[in-house]
């Protein structure tokens, strides 16, 4: 009984702390909620924990995928990629790097081995340069 009371107390403390922390952090975050712009419709967070295609396919075809993504998003404005399992991704190099930049050598290991020198990092920020 005593233990149950204790855990109940603990639960309450956690709940109250969490709510206070959340409110305080939200109140003191600056800038983001201000000035509703006119071209706004809807922005939703993306789930970057999934891969867009099986690893074997990506190993062989990532350059075609990136090429297709670049052309369709930049030139026709079709920025949403729908994977075979129905999940949606933004067609952006940052979608890939969102997970894969965890490994700083993700791109470089293979490219060095295969002696290919893509020009991506002349302009885009490589996983090596991400802070």
């Amino acid at each position, binding site marked *: 009984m005593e233990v149950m009371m204790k855990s109940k107390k603990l639960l309450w403390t956690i709940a109250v702390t969490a709510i206070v922390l959340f409110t305080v952090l939200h109140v003191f975050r600056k800038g983001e909620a201000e000035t509703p712009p006119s071209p706004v419709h809807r922005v939703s967070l993306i789930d970057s924990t999934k891969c867009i295609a099986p690893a074997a396919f990506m190993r062989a075809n990532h350059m075609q995928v990136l090429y297709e993504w670049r052309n369709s998003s930049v030139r026709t404005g079709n920025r949403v990629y729908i994977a075979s399992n129905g999940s949606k991704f933004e067609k952006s190099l940052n979608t890939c790097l969102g997970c894969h930049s965890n490994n700083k050598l993700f791109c470089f290991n293979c490219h060095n081995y295969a002696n290919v020198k893509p020009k991506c990092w002349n302009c*885009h920020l490589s996983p090596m340069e991400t802070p």
Partner: protein
Amino acid sequence: MSSVSDGNTMMNEQRREFIKKTALGVLVGLGAASGLVPAFSLEKTILPVWDEKPVPGKIRWGMLIDTRKCKDGCRQCVAACHHAHNVPDFKNKKDEVKWIWKSSYQNVFPTASQQFVSPEIQDRSYLALCNHCADSPCTKACPTEATFKRWDGIVSMDYHRCIGCRFCMAACPYGSRSFNWQDPRTAIHDPVTTYPTREQGVVEKCNFCSDRLVKGLQPACTEACPEHALTFGDLNDSRSDIRRLLETNETMQRKPELGTKPSVFYII
């Protein structure tokens, strides 16, 4: 009796563990949601504002610059734009790269037909940027279609395709395009991680903040102006702020006689 009480303590232990772990998870989750724990240092990937392929020609983005409000000496819009887009600063005129800049009346409106304008108007400095012309000469000059007219009226650059021939620079009557004679990365003093840089040998220009529009934000210059002198909006929407201001004010464009139909308007 003893076995029952043992079972109870075991259950309580498990309960405690569970509660502890849940609390930790909740706290970490809250931290991540409030931006305390950085999830990823690059730009957040978000589903864009336009879910599907947009209809070409439905939107035409435009800008109205109220030069009466624009303060002499204030360069906040220029600084905000150039910072947000990693525009290099080589500190010399020959290598200069610019997306938005301030210039004299004579340079911005060299063919304005008004004679004997007041010295106050002549002495002010005026904001200039890519006009995102409805009938853009630069996109017609580009041999590789690296620069092209977007579905929403923005004259866009695909830097991957630019071969650096500079035909577009010759074609643009407004000097809105700059060439990267050197590696721009050496001259970006405060780089941001949310936008790529360019490389040596490509032309660059204002993109009307298409990178911000896709996230539902206003252009960086519009947002940065302390006097709210810049109005950005859809010229095809008759109820938009910019259309209302265009209807109620006398405005002018740069070199309208060339027939390029600029999307940037000025109140003098």
